Protein backbone atom coordinates (compact mmCIF):
# COMPACT_ATOMS: atom_id res chain seq x y z
CA UNK A 1 0.00 0.00 0.00
CA UNK A 2 1.29 3.43 -0.79
CA UNK A 3 0.30 6.54 1.07
CA UNK A 4 -2.28 7.43 -1.57
CA UNK A 5 -4.30 4.35 -0.60
CA UNK A 6 -5.02 5.73 2.84
CA UNK A 7 -7.93 8.14 3.18
CA UNK A 8 -7.13 11.67 4.29
CA UNK A 9 -9.96 11.37 6.75
CA UNK A 10 -12.29 8.54 7.65
CA UNK A 11 -15.83 8.85 6.23
CA UNK A 12 -18.68 9.80 8.54
CA UNK A 13 -20.34 6.38 8.41
CA UNK A 14 -17.15 4.47 9.21
CA UNK A 15 -15.40 6.47 11.85
CA UNK A 16 -14.25 4.52 14.90
CA UNK A 17 -12.56 6.45 17.69
CA UNK A 18 -9.29 4.68 16.96
CA UNK A 19 -8.24 2.88 13.81
CA UNK A 20 -4.95 1.16 13.14
CA UNK A 21 -4.78 0.65 9.40
CA UNK A 22 -2.15 -1.80 8.21
CA UNK A 23 0.24 -0.61 10.91
CA UNK A 24 3.74 -2.05 11.18
CA UNK A 25 6.51 -1.30 13.64
CA UNK A 26 9.95 -2.79 13.74
CA UNK A 27 13.12 -2.25 15.71
CA UNK A 28 15.88 -2.87 13.25
CA UNK A 29 15.06 -6.27 11.82
CA UNK A 30 12.70 -7.25 14.61
CA UNK A 31 9.08 -6.86 13.51
CA UNK A 32 7.10 -6.04 16.60
CA UNK A 33 3.79 -5.20 14.91
CA UNK A 34 3.04 -6.39 11.43
CA UNK A 35 0.16 -5.18 9.25
CA UNK A 36 -2.13 -4.59 12.18
CA UNK A 37 -5.74 -3.59 11.56
CA UNK A 38 -7.45 -2.66 14.78
CA UNK A 39 -10.54 -0.55 15.45
CA UNK A 40 -11.87 0.74 18.73
CA UNK A 41 -15.34 2.26 18.76
CA UNK A 42 -16.29 5.36 20.69
CA UNK A 43 -17.02 4.50 24.31
CA UNK A 44 -15.68 1.00 23.90
CA UNK A 45 -13.51 -0.68 26.54
CA UNK A 46 -11.01 -2.93 24.84
CA UNK A 47 -8.54 -5.09 26.70
CA UNK A 48 -5.38 -6.40 25.15
CA UNK A 49 -3.92 -9.60 26.49
CA UNK A 50 -1.11 -11.76 25.22
CA UNK A 51 2.29 -13.21 26.00
CA UNK A 52 5.26 -11.05 26.89
CA UNK A 53 6.82 -9.48 23.84
CA UNK A 54 3.71 -9.83 21.69
CA UNK A 55 3.61 -6.09 21.07
CA UNK A 56 0.88 -4.98 23.50
CA UNK A 57 2.83 -2.07 24.91
CA UNK A 58 4.05 -1.11 21.48
CA UNK A 59 0.48 -0.72 20.23
CA UNK A 60 -0.35 1.70 23.05
CA UNK A 61 2.92 3.58 22.68
CA UNK A 62 2.39 3.96 18.95
CA UNK A 63 -1.05 5.40 19.63
CA UNK A 64 0.42 7.79 22.22
CA UNK A 65 3.02 8.76 19.56
CA UNK A 66 5.81 7.63 21.85
CA UNK A 67 6.95 5.37 19.00
CA UNK A 68 6.98 6.17 15.31
CA UNK A 69 5.48 3.46 13.17
CA UNK A 70 7.18 2.20 10.03
CA UNK A 71 4.09 1.48 7.99
CA UNK A 72 0.37 2.14 7.85
CA UNK A 73 -1.64 4.93 9.38
CA UNK A 74 -3.29 5.41 12.76
CA UNK A 75 -6.50 7.45 12.84
CA UNK A 76 -8.01 9.04 15.90
CA UNK A 77 -11.59 10.22 15.74
CA UNK A 78 -11.44 9.97 11.97
CA UNK A 79 -8.30 12.09 11.54
CA UNK A 80 -4.87 10.69 10.82
CA UNK A 81 -2.53 10.84 13.83
CA UNK A 82 0.72 9.53 12.48
CA UNK A 83 0.31 11.39 9.21
CA UNK A 84 -1.13 14.63 7.99
CA UNK A 85 -2.74 15.61 4.75
CA UNK A 86 -0.66 17.72 2.42
CA UNK A 87 -1.46 18.38 -1.22
CA UNK A 88 -4.03 15.63 -1.20
CA UNK A 89 -1.83 12.86 0.19
CA UNK A 90 -0.75 11.75 3.65
CA UNK A 91 2.78 12.63 4.69
CA UNK A 92 4.38 11.85 8.07
CA UNK A 93 2.92 14.21 10.65
CA UNK A 94 5.04 17.04 11.98
CA UNK A 95 5.19 17.85 15.67
CA UNK A 96 2.68 20.67 15.48
CA UNK A 97 0.04 18.64 13.74
CA UNK A 98 0.61 15.70 16.04
CA UNK A 99 0.18 17.83 19.14
CA UNK A 100 -3.28 18.81 17.95
CA UNK A 101 -4.46 15.25 17.37
CA UNK A 102 -2.64 13.80 20.38
CA UNK A 103 -4.63 16.03 22.71
CA UNK A 104 -7.51 13.55 22.56
CA UNK A 105 -5.36 10.72 23.95
CA UNK A 106 -4.24 10.14 27.52
CA UNK A 107 -2.08 7.39 28.94
CA UNK A 108 -1.27 5.79 32.27
CA UNK A 109 1.95 3.87 32.70
CA UNK A 110 3.07 0.86 34.65
CA UNK A 111 5.39 2.97 36.79
CA UNK A 112 3.04 5.95 37.29
CA UNK A 113 5.68 8.55 36.31
CA UNK A 114 4.29 11.22 38.60
CA UNK A 115 6.30 14.43 38.74
CA UNK A 116 8.33 13.86 41.93
CA UNK A 117 8.82 17.56 42.60
CA UNK A 118 5.11 18.34 42.66
CA UNK A 119 2.33 17.46 45.05
CA UNK A 120 -0.62 15.33 44.01
CA UNK A 121 -2.75 18.35 43.18
CA UNK A 122 0.10 20.11 41.38
CA UNK A 123 0.64 16.98 39.30
CA UNK A 124 -2.97 17.18 38.18
CA UNK A 125 -3.00 20.93 37.56
CA UNK A 126 0.21 21.13 35.58
CA UNK A 127 -1.21 19.94 32.25
CA UNK A 128 -4.45 21.93 32.38
CA UNK A 129 -2.59 25.14 33.27
CA UNK A 130 0.48 24.80 31.05
CA UNK A 131 -1.02 22.97 28.07
CA UNK A 132 -4.73 23.75 28.01
CA UNK A 133 -4.27 27.29 29.29
CA UNK A 134 -6.83 26.99 32.08
CA UNK A 135 -6.69 29.51 34.90
CA UNK A 136 -5.27 28.21 38.17
CA UNK A 137 -8.72 28.38 39.71
CA UNK A 138 -10.35 26.33 36.96
CA UNK A 139 -7.49 23.83 37.01
CA UNK A 140 -7.72 23.55 40.77
CA UNK A 141 -11.44 22.86 40.69
CA UNK A 142 -11.05 20.27 37.98
CA UNK A 143 -8.15 18.60 39.77
CA UNK A 144 -9.89 18.51 43.13
CA UNK A 145 -12.90 16.91 41.56
CA UNK A 146 -10.76 14.24 39.93
CA UNK A 147 -8.75 13.58 43.08
CA UNK A 148 -12.06 13.09 44.86
CA UNK A 149 -13.12 10.68 42.17
CA UNK A 150 -10.01 8.56 42.63
CA UNK A 151 -10.24 8.85 46.42
CA UNK A 152 -7.05 10.87 46.83
CA UNK A 153 -8.35 14.26 47.88
CA UNK A 154 -7.07 13.88 51.45
CA UNK A 155 -3.52 13.42 50.08
CA UNK A 156 -3.70 16.36 47.69
CA UNK A 157 -0.71 18.15 49.18
CA UNK A 158 1.59 15.14 49.44
CA UNK A 159 4.55 14.59 47.17
CA UNK A 160 4.66 11.25 45.32
CA UNK A 161 7.51 10.01 47.52
CA UNK A 162 5.06 10.00 50.42
CA UNK A 163 2.43 7.96 48.58
CA UNK A 164 2.07 4.21 48.13
CA UNK A 165 2.16 2.70 44.65
CA UNK A 166 -1.60 2.35 44.52
CA UNK A 167 -2.06 5.94 45.61
CA UNK A 168 0.47 7.17 43.06
CA UNK A 169 -1.29 5.30 40.30
CA UNK A 170 -4.63 6.81 41.27
CA UNK A 171 -3.12 10.29 41.14
CA UNK A 172 -1.63 9.43 37.75
CA UNK A 173 -5.08 8.45 36.48
CA UNK A 174 -6.53 11.73 37.77
CA UNK A 175 -3.68 13.64 36.12
CA UNK A 176 -4.35 12.00 32.76
CA UNK A 177 -8.10 12.59 33.05
CA UNK A 178 -7.56 16.26 33.87
CA UNK A 179 -6.60 16.74 30.22
CA UNK A 180 -10.09 15.53 29.23
CA UNK A 181 -8.93 12.94 26.71
CA UNK A 182 -11.40 11.05 24.55
CA UNK A 183 -9.27 7.92 24.61
CA UNK A 184 -7.49 6.57 27.68
CA UNK A 185 -4.69 4.05 27.46
CA UNK A 186 -3.70 1.89 30.43
CA UNK A 187 -0.52 -0.12 30.15
CA UNK A 188 -0.38 -2.71 32.93
CA UNK A 189 -1.24 -0.07 35.47
CA UNK A 190 -1.45 -2.63 38.28
CA UNK A 191 1.64 -4.70 37.44
CA UNK A 192 4.01 -2.75 39.67
CA UNK A 193 1.63 -2.79 42.64
CA UNK A 194 1.49 -4.95 45.74
CA UNK A 195 -1.44 -7.37 45.54
CA UNK A 196 -3.34 -5.73 48.38
CA UNK A 197 -3.53 -2.34 46.64
CA UNK A 198 -4.39 -3.55 43.13
CA UNK A 199 -8.07 -3.38 44.06
CA UNK A 200 -8.04 0.34 44.72
CA UNK A 201 -6.77 1.03 41.20
CA UNK A 202 -9.07 -1.42 39.45
CA UNK A 203 -11.94 0.09 41.44
CA UNK A 204 -11.17 3.48 39.90
CA UNK A 205 -11.07 2.04 36.40
CA UNK A 206 -14.35 0.23 36.97
CA UNK A 207 -15.87 3.51 38.07
CA UNK A 208 -14.61 5.18 34.91
CA UNK A 209 -16.16 2.48 32.77
CA UNK A 210 -19.46 2.72 34.61
CA UNK A 211 -19.80 6.47 34.81
CA UNK A 212 -18.02 7.92 31.80
CA UNK A 213 -18.29 7.44 28.11
CA UNK A 214 -14.53 7.21 27.66
CA UNK A 215 -12.94 5.06 25.02
CA UNK A 216 -10.38 2.88 26.75
CA UNK A 217 -7.67 0.51 25.70
CA UNK A 218 -6.11 -1.45 28.49
CA UNK A 219 -3.24 -3.90 28.58
CA UNK A 220 -3.44 -6.19 31.57
CA UNK A 221 -2.43 -9.55 32.93
CA UNK A 222 -5.42 -9.68 35.26
CA UNK A 223 -7.80 -11.93 33.38
CA UNK A 224 -10.58 -11.66 35.95
CA UNK A 225 -10.57 -7.88 35.71
CA UNK A 226 -10.46 -7.97 31.91
CA UNK A 227 -13.39 -10.32 31.91
CA UNK A 228 -15.50 -8.11 34.18
CA UNK A 229 -15.15 -4.79 32.49
CA UNK A 230 -14.22 -5.22 28.84
CA UNK A 231 -16.54 -4.94 25.89
CA UNK A 232 -13.99 -6.82 23.86
CA UNK A 233 -10.79 -8.70 24.56
CA UNK A 234 -8.01 -8.91 21.98
CA UNK A 235 -5.46 -11.66 22.23
CA UNK A 236 -2.18 -10.50 20.74
CA UNK A 237 0.37 -12.90 19.44
CA UNK A 238 3.52 -12.03 17.52
CA UNK A 239 2.47 -8.48 16.81
CA UNK A 240 -1.00 -9.06 15.48
CA UNK A 241 -4.43 -9.95 16.80
CA UNK A 242 -4.71 -13.70 16.95
CA UNK A 243 -8.26 -13.68 18.23
CA UNK A 244 -10.75 -11.16 19.55
CA UNK A 245 -14.19 -11.49 21.05
CA UNK A 246 -16.36 -10.28 23.91
CA UNK A 247 -14.88 -11.57 27.18
CA UNK A 248 -17.64 -14.11 27.90
CA UNK A 249 -16.83 -15.77 24.61
CA UNK A 250 -13.06 -15.42 24.50
CA UNK A 251 -12.50 -16.70 28.02
CA UNK A 252 -14.97 -19.58 27.87
CA UNK A 253 -14.65 -20.82 24.32
CA UNK A 254 -11.51 -19.57 22.62
CA UNK A 255 -11.21 -20.70 19.02
CA UNK A 256 -7.50 -20.62 18.37
CA UNK A 257 -4.95 -23.01 19.80
CA UNK A 258 -2.60 -20.21 20.83
CA UNK A 259 -5.36 -18.49 22.74
CA UNK A 260 -6.24 -21.72 24.50
CA UNK A 261 -2.61 -22.36 25.39
CA UNK A 262 -2.12 -18.83 26.69
CA UNK A 263 -5.30 -18.87 28.77
CA UNK A 264 -4.55 -22.23 30.34
CA UNK A 265 -0.97 -21.16 31.07
CA UNK A 266 -2.26 -18.00 32.75
CA UNK A 267 -4.81 -19.98 34.75
CA UNK A 268 -2.10 -22.29 36.05
CA UNK A 269 0.03 -19.37 37.12
CA UNK A 270 -2.75 -17.98 39.31
Amino acid at each position, binding site marked *: MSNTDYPLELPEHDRPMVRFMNVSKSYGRLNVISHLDFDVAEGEMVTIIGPSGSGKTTVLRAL*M*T*LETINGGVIYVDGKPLTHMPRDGVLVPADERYQ*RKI*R*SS*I*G*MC*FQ*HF*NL*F*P*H*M*TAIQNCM*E*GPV*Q*VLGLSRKEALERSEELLKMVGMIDKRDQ*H*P*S*RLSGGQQQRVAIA*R*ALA*MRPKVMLFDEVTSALDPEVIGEVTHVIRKLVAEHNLTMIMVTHQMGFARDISDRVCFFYGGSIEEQAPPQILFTSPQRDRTKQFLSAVKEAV
Partner: protein
Amino acid sequence: MTFNWRWDFTWEILPQLLWATLNTLIAAGVGYAIALVGGLLLALAQRTKWPALTFVVRELIEFIRSTPLVLQIFFVFYVGPQFGIFLSPWVSGIFAIGLHYSAYLSEVYRAGLNSVAPGQWEVCRALNMSPRVTYVRIIIPQALAPAVPGLGNYLVGILKDTPMLSVIGVMELMHTANALGSENYRYLEPFTLVGLIFLLISLPTAGLVRMFERRLRLRLGL
Protein backbone atom coordinates in the same frame (compact mmCIF):
# COMPACT_ATOMS: atom_id res chain seq x y z
CA MET B 1 66.65 33.04 59.02
CA THR B 2 64.34 34.77 61.37
CA PHE B 3 60.62 34.71 61.28
CA ASN B 4 59.35 38.18 62.00
CA TRP B 5 55.73 38.95 61.47
CA ARG B 6 55.07 42.69 61.52
CA TRP B 7 51.68 43.49 62.91
CA ASP B 8 51.88 47.19 62.09
CA PHE B 9 52.42 46.31 58.42
CA THR B 10 49.59 43.78 58.63
CA TRP B 11 47.11 46.39 59.86
CA GLU B 12 48.36 48.86 57.31
CA ILE B 13 47.72 46.65 54.29
CA LEU B 14 44.58 44.90 55.55
CA PRO B 15 42.09 47.56 54.34
CA GLN B 16 43.53 47.46 50.82
CA LEU B 17 43.40 43.70 50.79
CA LEU B 18 39.81 43.71 51.97
CA TRP B 19 38.92 46.08 49.15
CA ALA B 20 40.62 43.73 46.72
CA THR B 21 38.68 40.86 48.27
CA LEU B 22 35.54 42.62 47.20
CA ASN B 23 36.87 42.67 43.63
CA THR B 24 37.70 38.98 43.87
CA LEU B 25 34.20 38.24 45.10
CA ILE B 26 32.64 40.27 42.33
CA ALA B 27 34.77 38.57 39.69
CA ALA B 28 33.96 35.13 41.08
CA GLY B 29 30.29 35.96 41.58
CA VAL B 30 29.65 37.49 38.18
CA GLY B 31 31.78 34.84 36.48
CA TYR B 32 29.83 32.14 38.26
CA ALA B 33 26.49 33.69 37.34
CA ILE B 34 27.59 33.71 33.69
CA ALA B 35 28.71 30.11 34.01
CA LEU B 36 25.43 29.01 35.63
CA VAL B 37 23.43 30.36 32.70
CA GLY B 38 26.01 29.60 29.99
CA GLY B 39 26.52 26.07 31.27
CA LEU B 40 22.83 25.35 31.17
CA LEU B 41 22.57 26.75 27.64
CA LEU B 42 25.55 24.66 26.49
CA ALA B 43 23.98 21.56 28.06
CA LEU B 44 20.59 22.22 26.46
CA ALA B 45 22.15 23.03 23.09
CA GLN B 46 23.47 19.48 22.97
CA ARG B 47 19.96 18.10 23.24
CA THR B 48 18.36 19.83 20.26
CA LYS B 49 17.43 17.92 17.14
CA TRP B 50 20.24 19.52 15.13
CA PRO B 51 23.30 17.25 15.15
CA ALA B 52 25.48 20.04 13.75
CA LEU B 53 24.79 22.26 16.74
CA THR B 54 25.50 19.42 19.15
CA PHE B 55 28.77 18.78 17.36
CA VAL B 56 29.89 22.40 17.45
CA VAL B 57 28.99 22.78 21.11
CA ARG B 58 30.76 19.56 22.08
CA GLU B 59 33.90 20.65 20.27
CA LEU B 60 33.76 24.07 21.91
CA ILE B 61 33.45 22.48 25.35
CA GLU B 62 36.31 20.10 24.62
CA PHE B 63 38.45 23.00 23.44
CA ILE B 64 37.74 25.10 26.51
CA ARG B 65 38.36 22.21 28.86
CA SER B 66 41.63 21.19 27.31
CA THR B 67 43.29 24.60 27.14
CA PRO B 68 44.51 26.67 30.10
CA LEU B 69 42.31 29.36 31.55
CA VAL B 70 45.19 31.85 31.31
CA LEU B 71 45.34 31.34 27.58
CA GLN B 72 41.63 32.02 27.28
CA ILE B 73 41.96 35.18 29.34
CA PHE B 74 44.84 36.40 27.18
CA PHE B 75 42.92 35.47 24.09
CA VAL B 76 39.83 37.48 24.96
CA PHE B 77 41.86 40.46 26.11
CA TYR B 78 44.65 40.64 23.53
CA VAL B 79 43.17 38.92 20.48
CA GLY B 80 39.66 40.28 20.90
CA PRO B 81 40.64 43.76 19.67
CA GLN B 82 41.85 42.29 16.35
CA PHE B 83 38.25 41.29 15.75
CA GLY B 84 37.07 44.70 16.81
CA ILE B 85 36.13 43.58 20.31
CA PHE B 86 37.66 45.99 22.80
CA LEU B 87 36.97 45.00 26.38
CA SER B 88 38.45 46.31 29.60
CA PRO B 89 40.58 43.89 31.64
CA TRP B 90 37.71 43.50 34.04
CA VAL B 91 35.13 42.68 31.42
CA SER B 92 37.36 40.38 29.39
CA GLY B 93 38.57 38.64 32.54
CA ILE B 94 35.12 37.96 33.88
CA PHE B 95 33.84 36.95 30.46
CA ALA B 96 36.74 34.52 29.96
CA ILE B 97 36.36 32.97 33.37
CA GLY B 98 32.58 32.73 32.94
CA LEU B 99 32.98 31.03 29.59
CA HIS B 100 35.62 28.69 30.96
CA TYR B 101 33.41 27.57 33.79
CA SER B 102 30.36 27.35 31.51
CA ALA B 103 32.12 24.45 29.84
CA TYR B 104 32.62 22.66 33.15
CA LEU B 105 29.18 23.41 34.50
CA SER B 106 27.55 22.24 31.28
CA GLU B 107 28.92 18.77 32.00
CA VAL B 108 27.37 18.84 35.46
CA TYR B 109 24.04 19.95 34.02
CA ARG B 110 24.30 17.31 31.34
CA ALA B 111 24.72 14.57 33.93
CA GLY B 112 21.77 16.02 35.86
CA LEU B 113 19.57 16.11 32.76
CA ASN B 114 20.54 12.55 31.89
CA SER B 115 19.63 11.40 35.38
CA VAL B 116 15.98 12.35 34.91
CA ALA B 117 13.98 9.16 34.42
CA PRO B 118 12.98 8.47 30.78
CA GLY B 119 9.41 7.99 31.97
CA GLN B 120 9.26 11.69 32.82
CA TRP B 121 9.83 12.63 29.18
CA GLU B 122 7.21 10.16 28.05
CA VAL B 123 4.57 11.38 30.42
CA CYS B 124 5.23 14.97 29.33
CA ARG B 125 4.55 13.88 25.78
CA ALA B 126 1.46 11.99 26.87
CA LEU B 127 0.22 15.17 28.54
CA ASN B 128 0.93 16.98 25.28
CA MET B 129 3.40 19.40 26.82
CA SER B 130 5.50 21.58 24.57
CA PRO B 131 9.29 21.17 24.72
CA ARG B 132 9.54 24.46 26.58
CA VAL B 133 7.08 23.45 29.30
CA THR B 134 8.68 20.01 29.47
CA TYR B 135 12.12 21.47 30.15
CA VAL B 136 11.23 24.45 32.28
CA ARG B 137 8.57 22.89 34.47
CA ILE B 138 9.47 19.22 34.60
CA ILE B 139 12.95 18.25 33.49
CA ILE B 140 15.21 21.10 34.65
CA PRO B 141 13.85 21.24 38.22
CA GLN B 142 14.50 17.53 38.57
CA ALA B 143 17.94 17.79 36.98
CA LEU B 144 18.94 20.59 39.33
CA ALA B 145 18.84 18.77 42.66
CA PRO B 146 21.46 16.14 41.76
CA ALA B 147 23.53 18.82 40.00
CA VAL B 148 23.83 21.17 42.98
CA PRO B 149 26.83 19.49 44.69
CA GLY B 150 28.75 19.46 41.40
CA LEU B 151 27.80 23.04 40.63
CA GLY B 152 28.82 24.04 44.15
CA ASN B 153 32.28 22.52 43.83
CA TYR B 154 32.95 24.78 40.90
CA LEU B 155 31.92 27.80 42.94
CA VAL B 156 34.98 27.23 45.12
CA GLY B 157 36.95 26.41 41.97
CA ILE B 158 36.10 29.67 40.26
CA LEU B 159 37.00 31.60 43.41
CA LYS B 160 40.42 29.98 43.48
CA ASP B 161 40.94 30.75 39.81
CA THR B 162 40.28 34.48 40.09
CA PRO B 163 44.02 35.20 40.70
CA MET B 164 44.46 34.32 37.02
CA LEU B 165 42.85 37.64 36.22
CA SER B 166 45.94 39.36 37.61
CA VAL B 167 47.77 38.46 34.38
CA ILE B 168 45.82 41.15 32.55
CA GLY B 169 46.05 43.56 35.46
CA VAL B 170 42.73 43.11 37.23
CA MET B 171 43.19 44.37 40.76
CA GLU B 172 41.87 41.33 42.54
CA LEU B 173 43.29 39.95 45.76
CA MET B 174 46.40 38.30 44.40
CA HIS B 175 47.43 41.18 42.22
CA THR B 176 46.95 43.61 45.10
CA ALA B 177 48.99 41.48 47.50
CA ASN B 178 51.76 41.18 44.95
CA ALA B 179 51.78 44.93 44.41
CA LEU B 180 51.86 45.60 48.17
CA GLY B 181 54.68 43.11 48.52
CA SER B 182 56.88 44.62 45.86
CA GLU B 183 56.21 48.16 47.07
CA ASN B 184 57.31 47.33 50.60
CA TYR B 185 59.74 44.52 49.96
CA ARG B 186 57.70 42.32 52.29
CA TYR B 187 55.73 39.37 50.98
CA LEU B 188 55.11 37.35 54.13
CA GLU B 189 52.18 39.32 55.47
CA PRO B 190 50.32 40.04 52.20
CA PHE B 191 50.47 36.48 50.90
CA THR B 192 49.64 34.94 54.28
CA LEU B 193 46.63 37.22 54.52
CA VAL B 194 45.56 36.28 51.01
CA GLY B 195 45.72 32.61 51.97
CA LEU B 196 43.69 33.25 55.10
CA ILE B 197 41.08 35.26 53.25
CA PHE B 198 40.66 32.55 50.60
CA LEU B 199 40.34 29.95 53.34
CA LEU B 200 37.75 32.01 55.20
CA ILE B 201 35.65 32.34 52.05
CA SER B 202 36.04 28.80 50.74
CA LEU B 203 35.23 26.92 53.91
CA PRO B 204 31.76 28.33 54.56
CA THR B 205 30.97 28.19 50.84
CA ALA B 206 31.14 24.40 50.84
CA GLY B 207 28.83 24.32 53.85
CA LEU B 208 26.41 26.74 52.23
CA VAL B 209 26.27 24.61 49.10
CA ARG B 210 25.38 21.54 51.15
CA MET B 211 22.69 23.48 52.96
CA PHE B 212 21.32 24.83 49.71
CA GLU B 213 21.13 21.33 48.25
CA ARG B 214 19.24 20.06 51.28
CA ARG B 215 16.78 22.90 51.13
CA LEU B 216 16.28 22.52 47.39
CA ARG B 217 15.54 18.82 47.81
CA LEU B 218 13.08 19.60 50.54
CA ARG B 219 11.36 22.26 48.48
CA LEU B 220 11.12 19.96 45.48
CA GLY B 221 9.86 17.16 47.72
CA LEU B 222 12.61 14.84 46.53
